[in-house]
């Protein structure tokens, strides 16, 4: 692959990515956000976060063995630990360990 192609592509991809993150700041630089925008700003993050969970699970093959069992167990462990102990790091760490154990040793 030619280096001029790669460098050009990287610059363009960089600007395109930055643009998607910058747009809302440009839109509301001068005017004060309306109550509607404030309402979105306040309530959208929770929805984004929940949807990100499903996004992270989008490549799971639910119809074939092992039917996403490891993912479901991992998520349930994370929820249970977090509701019980309220320690984010512990919940994430143990849920990941359980998940890794399942896919490496049990469901392979």
């Amino acid at each position, binding site marked *: 692959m030619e280096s001029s192609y790669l460098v050009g592509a990287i610059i363009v991809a960089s600007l395109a990515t930055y643009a998607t993150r910058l747009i809302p700041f440009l839109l509301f630089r001068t005017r004060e956000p309306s109550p509607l925008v404030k309402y979105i700003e306040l*309530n959208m993050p929770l929805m984004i976060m929940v949807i990100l969970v499903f996004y992270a699970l989008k490549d799971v093959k639910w119809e074939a063995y092992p039917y996403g069992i490891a993912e479901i167990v991992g998520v349930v462990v994370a929820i249970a630990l977090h509701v019980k102990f309220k320690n984010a790091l512990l919940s994430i760490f143990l849920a990941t360990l359980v998940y890794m154990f399942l896919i490496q040793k049990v469901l392979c």
Partner: protein
Amino acid sequence: MNFFAIFKLTIPVLMGYIPLGMAFGLLLSKLLIPWYYALFMSIFIFAGSGQFLALTLFASQATILEIGIATFLLNLRHTFYGLSMISTFKDFSWKKHYLIFGLTDETFALLKTSEVPEENREKVYLIITVLNQCYWIIGSVVGAMLGNILPFNYEGIEFSLTALFVVLSIELYKKSRLHKPFFVAIIIGLFGMFLFPPQKMLILSLCVAAFVLIVFKRSMESGK
């Protein structure tokens, strides 16, 4: 907040970004692209799925214009993140441009849920973003240089990012005044996961969520 406390916040991202970055670097080296391009890409693009997409497009010799459009569309979801950060970043100095640049899914998640006193906010946010980008850079460069020769089996460690989103959803749910958006988002997420094409799942689901949030504002705010 001292450095260690901030570092602790970013550990889940560390656990996710190193292996994911390595997977990216590995793919890059399989396309016979020199390792320092992994470094440039992770410094100047800093978008997980965006960089994977770029590699796929490189491999099929897409034009630079196509790469620009595809990256823009893929990352369009970040517009929603920015929208949720407008008032938080409003009074920050010029350094906020780096924060805006670094607003990945995971960085957004950490910034939105970390509880930082207002006077330290800019500094703490900068450290979180820099740390996250460092993990990503280290992972991708190591992956591109070392590739397959790593001795231990870290398969599945990227689940830490899924667990991170789960935990942060619970945190935001507890903090949120309105609870209906949470349940609506679960329905949209489930629907999107099974019915939307995987490549467009995130942006489509986010658009539906924004649409429902706005159109049904009154019923969202009624009850609890």
